[in-house]
């Protein structure tokens, strides 16, 4: 009876799931697999500020035909603010204003970018005026003069001149003049502005520009300053810290000039954060338009309607059910023992950031060290909660230690250890030591290895780009996954490993059967 009930429920869930997916695919034309060639970038700027009661006026620079990109779509979330866009000093500004506002305010600017190396090549072509030679105070004046003289003698044109200058200013052990000029500068903005100032001493037109690096899944991003120098024909871009020439293809120019990124009246400061996601917004847009034609509102309720920051959260969250399916499969059908039901999934999520091999090594290292210290704690006979907290503190210490040592050794991946879920690690160590005590080291190691096997499989499934795309575009696949787990919940067959465990019995039975067979 209850088995039938579960089966019916699973059937209904599967039918709904399949129907919704096929509707989206067949009627709305959503692609079933991620299409690489129509990749677009969704960029979102989130402006947050707290106002005093009263009028607010906010200027924020927005994308203005950035070189190398085409802006496909652009929109603003302005709440009750009035919005106007205008040009000012080479920047395109969004000007938000409201007569009355108070408390926490959030405004958004979103754009969809399509990467095209040929686009907007001529941006900012009009030649600038040559800057006046600034009147530097001493000791800077003599430092600038002699540094520029040195650089000039070792360069042929403006490009090599700038490169030479940057190389000297960025040298690990700078010579005296460069050191004087570099002294006391901290923020990247100051450093780049200082370079513009020094270049003005050679009457070379230069400016600070800000770019956004497009990195999929980025959430709390900021603009980076770049240096541009005009060589009488066009603007050349330099990385101010590595002296490399040219703007990398994944950096989109956001604004020109220095100063705070957003100017506000009526609030003290604005917190600006950028989110970036790579997706198939364009295809979904087509589908959305078609949905409107058909009269369907299904796309209004898709995950794409969320702010990008939230979308990026759901991209991760939707992978977790896939991991859960892996756990169900490995435990119910295969019979692998793990520590904690979902611990392997959380470890697998951490593997997504650290890479598999490195993640495995660090996990084993932390658990082994933690286990050693936990056995020492055992001698102290501590109560449960203080003991768990002690293990947690030890885990955090170990993680910090690994990061610091890794960094010293120049292993950048050592830093990613911070992404491990430390509470889960602490619980794993605690459970493992309990099992070690109660059922012996063999059992503890078996479960430890089991956990890692499940975590690795979970990682393999959860890092699949196709699956990630599918659950995000078709969240109704979760209904099908739910149906699978419900059915698995009523599975009463053998686990794969039980065949191995009871092999002696089965072999006996076979030999008995043979004996009976020959006897009769």
């Amino acid at each position, binding site marked *: 009876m209850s088995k039938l009930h579960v089966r019916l429920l699973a059937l209904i869930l599967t039918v709904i799931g399949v129907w919704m997916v096929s509707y989206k695919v067949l009627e709305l034309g959503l692609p079933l697999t991620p299409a690489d060639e129509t990749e677009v970038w969704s960029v979102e700027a989130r402006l947050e500020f707290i106002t005093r009661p009263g009028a607010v006026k906010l200027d924020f620079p927005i994308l203005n035909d950035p070189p190398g990109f085409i802006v496909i779509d652009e929109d603003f979330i302005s709440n009750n603010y009035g919005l106007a866009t205008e040009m000012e000093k080479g920047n395109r500004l969004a000007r938000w204003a409201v007569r009355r506002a108070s408390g926490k305010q959030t405004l958004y600017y979103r754009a969809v970018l399509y990467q095209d190396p040929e686009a907007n090549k001529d941006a900012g072509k009009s030649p600038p005026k040559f800057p006046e030679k600034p009147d530097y105070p001493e000791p800077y004046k003599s430092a600038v003069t002699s540094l520029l003289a040195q650089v000039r003698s070792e360069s042929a044109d403006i490009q090599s001149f700038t490169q030479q200058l940057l190389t000297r200013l960025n040298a690990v052990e700078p010579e005296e003049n460069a050191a004087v000029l570099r002294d006391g500068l901290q923020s990247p903005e100051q450093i780049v502005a200082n370079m513009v100032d020094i270049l003005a001493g050679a009457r070379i037109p230069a400016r600070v520009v800000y770019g956004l690096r497009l990195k999929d899944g980025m959430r709390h991003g900021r603009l980076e300053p770049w240096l541009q120098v005009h060589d009488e024909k066009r603007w050349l871009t330099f990385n101010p810290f590595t002296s490399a020439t040219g703007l990398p293809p994944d950096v989109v120019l956001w604004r020109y000039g220095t100063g705070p990124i957003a100017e506000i009246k009526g609030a003290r400061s604005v917190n600006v954060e950028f989110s970036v996601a790579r997706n198939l917004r364009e295809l979904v847009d087509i589908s959305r338009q078609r949905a409107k034609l058909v009269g369907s509102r299904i796309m209004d309720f898709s995950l794409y309607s969320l702010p990008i920051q939230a979308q990026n959260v759901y991209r991760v969250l939707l992978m977790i059910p896939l991991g859960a399916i892996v756990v169900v499969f490995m435990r*119910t059908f295969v*019979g692998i023992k793990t520590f904690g039901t979902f611990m392997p999934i959380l470890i697998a999520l951490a593997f997504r950031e650290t890479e598999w091999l490195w993640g495995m090594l660090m996990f084993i290292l932390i658990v082994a060290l933690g286990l050693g210290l936990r056995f020492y704690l055992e001698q102290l*006979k501590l*109560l*449960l*909660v203080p003991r768990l907290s002690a293990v947690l503190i030890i885990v955090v210490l170990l993680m910090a230690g690994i990061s610091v040592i890794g960094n010293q050794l120049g292993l950048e991946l050592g830093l990613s250890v911070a992404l491990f879920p430390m509470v889960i690690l602490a619980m794993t160590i605690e459970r493992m030591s309990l099992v070690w*005590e*109660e*059922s*012996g080291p063999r*059992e503890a190691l078996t479960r430890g290895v089991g956990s890692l096997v499940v975590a690795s499989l979970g990682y393999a499934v959860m890092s699949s780009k196709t699956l990630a795309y599918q659950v995000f575009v078709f969240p109704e696949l979760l209904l099908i996954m739910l149906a699978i787990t419900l059915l698995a*919940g*009523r*599975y*009463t*067959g*053998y*686990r794969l490993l*039980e*065949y191995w*465990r*009871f*092999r*002696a*019995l*089965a*072999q*006996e*039975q*076979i030999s008995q059967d043979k004996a009976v067979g020959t006897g009769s």
Partner: protein
Amino acid sequence: MFWARQLHKMGLLGMNQRNAGYVMPHNPRRLYPLVDDKLKTKKLAQDAGIAVPELYGTIEIEHDIPKLASIVEKYEDFVIKPSQGSGGNGIVVVVGKRGDKYIKASGDMITTEALAHHCSNILNGLYSLGGSADKAMIEYRVKFDPLFEHVSYRGVPDIRTIIFRGVPVAAMVRLPTRASDGKANLHQGAVGAGIDLRTGKTIRAVCKERVITQHPDTGMDIAGLQIPHWDNLLELSAHCYDLAGLGYMGVDVVLDAERGPLVLELNARPGLSIQIANGMGLLKRLNKIDCMADVPKSAEARARLGKELFGSSPEIAVAS
């Protein structure tokens, strides 16, 4: 996997089926506290007239710890154990007194203060599952039946019987080994010997999921041992069904040289290794009981039913 079909054929019970088919439908969750807390089990058993190691006293709060001395005053030997302990942790066995000190089973001396400290640890949940507050039980020290002296290495041999709807379906004796560190836990390498339900004689033994004939430490033959007081023991195990109401459970019994079989604890999720120890699958036996509309009311009748259904047939016993 050429043996895969054999397992089905011999009716082997797997973990999924044990959980979904037997533990979940027959053991309501609300009954678990009765078996997880050994003190509750013991009180229920005493009320029902089931033989258990006699309870000398309990210490439930820190304030009671000074009473320990007066509780054990009358007894030469005793055992202190946590009522919700697992895996045999936190048990102190005292075999005698010398002056104001006690002698532990290992031969070491222990002072009254140290015993009191041990009780305090138990109350604070040092040995209980999940670390919740616990109680300390002081009870009769079981003097093991000399029968097992040559087939166990230290520790406590016990007899596990699976009781389904009150009817014994299979039994085995668990013998500690050096590898299991004196614990009667098959996982850790203890020997499990299947028992013929009709005669109470051991059939064969397994250690680490392999069939063996001799104890790995003592070298003594294990098959053919007669468990003393067998009828009594089986009836006692069947009787335990009445006190907890668990439809599918394991009953652990120890044999005392003077008082005979005593119930040690009940288990709501008995393991599957008993099938290897007996060389048979449980499913066929469980199905037979499942098909019955009613099972007899009295424990004695149920024990007899188990013997008739699942014991060896007398002719074979005569022939061997």
